[in-house]
């Protein structure tokens, strides 16, 4: 039956992630943004939480008792992103390899690749999805994978590839000879995989993002993950949408706090209907988006294709987070424009959700 209550495990994960985000991630967010780095100590601390390990079955070195759940993944993604989006993406980057391998990979691929991600320390993962042109859509990649003998040759340009320099593997998405979307696990150092300069963006300053060029990059047949790659990118959309909800939630709470402190016309800013109703709307929209995305996640967990549900939730969350973060800045007036407050950073990070594709995974 329809029920919105968390089960015990979900409740536990949520509390763990939320308090880590509040105590460790948020305090580090502005400095991470200004210095464009994520502190090693923070990465180590997050690794101890076991957020990656908990999604991998014991057989491959993790301690999950079941297949990775999109709903649980959404809870983790939202919670961490409420702390900081760039840091959340960095901390969860191993999933960019782990999740595709688990969901799309063969038994052999799982055994070959997963244990490397389940050691004592964090190992960065990466995925190359986005392309630097205006008409990008994940169902119609321009990057191609051409059959060549017993392997594949990859050609194309990708951008916003997270942690591409440090990651031992990058999962590259491309259209194969039939035009179908395919995923390839490409080891770093593969000839023809050229990692470009670190990219500077509107937001996500703390996250290392690179453009990469694939120039006749040859990989063996075993590099291709045989499952339906579109399914993976739908899971990624759900994770991203959950992060949008997290950013919106952060914005809302900060704006509420400000509105209750700041005076205007002899009362608090929050006592003015224009601001109060704006906050009410932000709260409603954040909740609505979260529910819509949970439903999409739940559908994925049921094994449904959920193309429609994911598309609806993705679009809704992307629009919602832009409106909410923009209004969140507006509540602060001039102070919102100043980098002392996090609001402007949330606008910059929030603006990306309509663009981000595959930089988060569940």
């Amino acid at each position: 039956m329809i029920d919105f209550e968390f089960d015990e495990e979900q409740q536990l994960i949520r509390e763990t992630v939320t308090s880590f985000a509040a105590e460790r991630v948020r305090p580090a967010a502005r400095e991470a943004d200004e210095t464009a780095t994520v502190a090693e100590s923070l990465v180590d601390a997050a690794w101890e939480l076991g957020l990656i390990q908990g999604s991998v079955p014991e057989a491959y070195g993790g301690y999950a008792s079941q297949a990775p759940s999109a709903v649980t993944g959404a809870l983790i993604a939202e919670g961490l992103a409420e702390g900081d989006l760039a840091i959340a993406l960095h901390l969860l980057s191993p999933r960019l390899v782990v999740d595709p391998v688990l969901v799309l990979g063969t038994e052999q691929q799982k055994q070959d690749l997963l244990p490397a991600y389940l050691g004592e320390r964090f190992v960065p993962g990466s995925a190359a999805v986005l392309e630097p042109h205006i008409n990008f859509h994940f169902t119609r990649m321009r990057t191609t994978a051409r059959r060549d003998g017993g392997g594949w040759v990859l050609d194309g340009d990708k951008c916003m590839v997270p942690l591409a320099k440090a990651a031992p593997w990058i999962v590259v998405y491309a259209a194969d000879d039939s035009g179908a979307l395919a995923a390839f696990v490409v080891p770093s150092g593969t000839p023809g995989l050229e990692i470009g300069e670190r990219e500077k963006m509107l937001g996500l300053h703390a996250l290392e993002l690179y453009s990469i060029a694939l120039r006749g990059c040859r990989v063996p047949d075993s590099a291709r993950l045989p499952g339906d790659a579109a399914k993976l990118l739908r899971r990624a959309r759900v994770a991203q949408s959950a992060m949008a909800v997290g950013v919106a939630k952060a914005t809302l709470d900060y704006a509420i706090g400000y509105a209750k402190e700041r005076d205007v016309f002899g009362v608090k800013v929050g006592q003015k209907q224009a601001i109060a109703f704006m906050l009410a709307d932000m709260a409603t929209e954040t909740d609505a988006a979260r529910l819509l995305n949970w439903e999409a996640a739940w559908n994925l967990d049921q094994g449904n294709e959920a193309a429609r549900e994911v598309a609806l939730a993705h679009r809704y969350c992307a629009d919602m987070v832009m409106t909410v973060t923009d209004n969140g800045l507006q509540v602060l007036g001039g102070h919102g424009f100043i980098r002392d407050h996090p609001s402007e950073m949330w606008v910059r990070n929030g603006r990306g959700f309509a663009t981000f594709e595959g930089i988060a995974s569940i």
Partner: protein
Amino acid sequence: MDFSLSKAAQGRIAMARMAAESLMRPISRQYDEEEHTDPWDFFNTMWEASKANAEATSLGGKKSGDKKVSENTLLACMQIEELAWGDAGLYLSIPNPGLGGAAVQAVGTPEQKQRFLGSFYKGKPKWGAMAITEPHFGSDSKQVATTAVREGDEWVLNGTKIFCTAGHRALNESDGFVVVWATLDRSKGRAAIKSFIVPAGTPGVTVTRLEDKMGIRASDTVTITLDNARIPADNILGTAEIVEKGSTGSFGGVMATFDSTRPIVAASGIGVARAALEVLTQVLAEQGIAIRYEAGPSEQTVLEREVMNMEAQLQAARLLTWKACNMMDRGQRNSREASMAKAKAGTVVTRVTQKCVELAGALGYSRKMMLEKWMRDAKITDIYEGTQQINQLIIARSILGYSSGELN
């Protein structure tokens, strides 16, 4: 977390859907055009069904006591979404205890429940109604000026009530009742506002006006004049003492019934908007237009995007509504969520039905299709049981932790 429909939900939806399709849709346009007439065949059929259902329930046939979590509120919302999908005006006209009954259920004594609800489904069709609003106020319900004075074994009521849904059928067309809000002492504010059960046939109670409305025309909306209307002393809901707010039977207690009625209003609006969206997509399908959900902005047409947005908005409103119900069924405080559902649904169903009319072009604007009617019916969702603005106030107070004095 679970997004699947229970067997009970599926059953309830199927039953309501059948009534909507077979009883409501066929007469929907007629009773929109013929305002202020009564679809007695429909009333009688629904009444018999409710009777049978009430008897079955009283015999214990439909108990759900063995379940961990109740889904009573949820099931009510799902049922009402279907009925309003059939016709929102007719749904509001179904003979039942209505909002008046909800108030008795929420704050009445066992004796009152027995007296007014226990044998409600006996005899001919009856209606219950609620009368709150007065000519000089809309949302600010602490302004109640209708007075109740105790004289011997009776309360004497004087005043004028407007916008009373089903008041005509409750008082003039049946042996129903209206729950009337009145003040014992205007100088004492909210705490002195009480509600009183006024039965049909009470001398001094007159329906003085039937409103001509934009939509939901099958439903009657009336003005009731109370001129020294005398009712028994034990027809007061809750205590006659002027007590602190929050106590049962006080203003706060009655206001709390909104926590269950607002999701229901949301659900009814969602039913109307869903009807419109279904017809639009059906017409599009006939033209060979399918919605490509995973297309990008340089491929997707405006039409496809609009449909996609409407589907997302409608589902978002529905999930907020279900959430508010789920919380109520779990015994959790849900005022904020109930207002979120109502506010969101009010906006969404207004926009969706308006947009469907637009996208269907001249067909949408014509009374040959139902889209234009659904647009007129949907708008009330954003108005009654607390306007958009009132619900925004409640949400804002809740998230900011403000009292009604601090934020109004």
